[in-house]
């Protein structure tokens, strides 16, 4: 059986605290530059496009599409059988790594550009991770 204690869990830094507090509260938090309007990820207290420090944290829609993925066939103690590692493109623009869950881990069920929705899972007392599932799936 999958042993979630074998996952490599994130340790937040001051710059990323808001993101990991957000996942605990069921929110996917991104940042937006108030100077040039760029929405960006991963977190940092300045805009990577124009260097402005006038930035805000906001809650993203959680909607995304499947940008690319692999299905890992080598055994990992935190997963049961082959599992997808994916990069999704968020509706707001940035991309992030995740696992696609609640669907068979096979190429015919994982089609590039398919619509996805974020779903949060508590993997330890202190950490919830953002996963994605096909849009419209029951959680």
């Amino acid at each position: 059986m999958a042993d979630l204690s074998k996952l490599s869990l994130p340790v937040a830094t001051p710059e990323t605290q808001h993101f990991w507090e957000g996942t605990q509260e069921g929110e996917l938090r991104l940042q937006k530059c108030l100077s040039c309007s760029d929405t960006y990820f991963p977190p940092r207290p300045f805009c990577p496009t124009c260097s402005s420090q006038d930035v805000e944290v906001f809650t993203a829609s959680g909607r995304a599409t499947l940008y690319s993925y692999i299905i890992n066939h080598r055994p990992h103690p935190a997963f049961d059988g082959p599992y997808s590692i994916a990069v999704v493109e968020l509706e707001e623009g940035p991309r992030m790594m995740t696992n696609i869950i609640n669907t068979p881990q096979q190429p015919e069920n994982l089609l590039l550009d398919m619509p996805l929705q974020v779903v949060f899972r508590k993997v330890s007392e202190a950490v919830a991770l953002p996963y994605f599932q096909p849009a419209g799936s029951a959680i």
Partner: protein
Amino acid sequence: MKRGSIAIVGAAETTELGRIPGLSQLQLHADAALNGMRDAGISMADIDGVACAGESPTSVAHYLGIQPNWVDSTSVGGCSFMLHVRHAAAAINDGLCNTVLITHGESGRSNVGRSGFRGGGAATLPGQFEAPFGGMGPTTSFTLPFLRYMKETGTTLEQLAMVVVSQRRWAGLNPRATLQEPTTVDEVMNDRMIAYPFTKPECCLVTDGGGALIVVAADRVADFPQSPVYLLGTGESVETPMISQMADFTSSRAFKIASANAFAEAGIQHSEVDHVMIYDAFAHLPFYGLEDMGFCKPGEAGPYIAEGNTSPGGELPVNTNGGGLSYMHSGMYGMYALQESVRQIRGSAAAQVDAADISVCHGVGGMFAASGTIIMGTQETL
């Protein structure tokens, strides 16, 4: 760098490649360095600059008994050695040192005394935003862009398998290659799945080994026994430590910048290139390399390789030692690509290309994280 102002006058790999459980990683550096100095006809006392990755130049210089005036510990993954060559050229031209030793040694297979290039901890950005999703290193991250590349370009899995088939043809001509038996598209595609869509033969070997280069000002080449290999052009860049943040999954920004600068410095056209090395940690790397360097238009590298153009007898010989897929791959393969380019320009390669006057040697570091390009030429190209 002024075109032709710097030359490689010593080049050698470790005596053995493959499984070398009898040597520590530091001794692999030393074995390569001793072979490289023998090749150049010099001794430790002649070296005044040291560059290496995987081990620190402090460790390597002290172990070898060298007291340097200049060191470079640039460590951006497997292409670090391309960057060392470029940095050494600048340092020599600026008078900071005269004779630079660049070493690589890696106990990638046997793990004897291994240290060096590793990922960061759980609080780094990759540790926070990639590691939690079960990545297992290069097999799951380097491969991740390829399904997007396939969709955008129409490249097929058969064409991916043909990269392995093509390079195995070269490896069959090389007695030092780890895998020399010919293979087929069917064999490659039906092999064990590692990370869909990549099967085992589409992932690089994991071996032990090392290599060393000796770099000097070109006006000194008459003092050395080997036919000189001149640097015509150099380039480097980095993009991102996170594969998820690579700007375009069909093209590497670092590849484009490093190679464009090298070609501009060399002042050559692609049609003048006789030989190409493209660091192939996985079978899709030659697609990105050929396209981002400008040898093929976007999406054309798959058919180009599948039609045999990069195989023995083809118009553009690529990865003539067999590459990381068939020759060897210790973890930071860039040094072996450089060694093969040097051999081709010297005319001493196992699978020697006819009239190899210009060789382009292109490296990747991390998972599309960094890149370095070195263009080498014979005396006739100056």
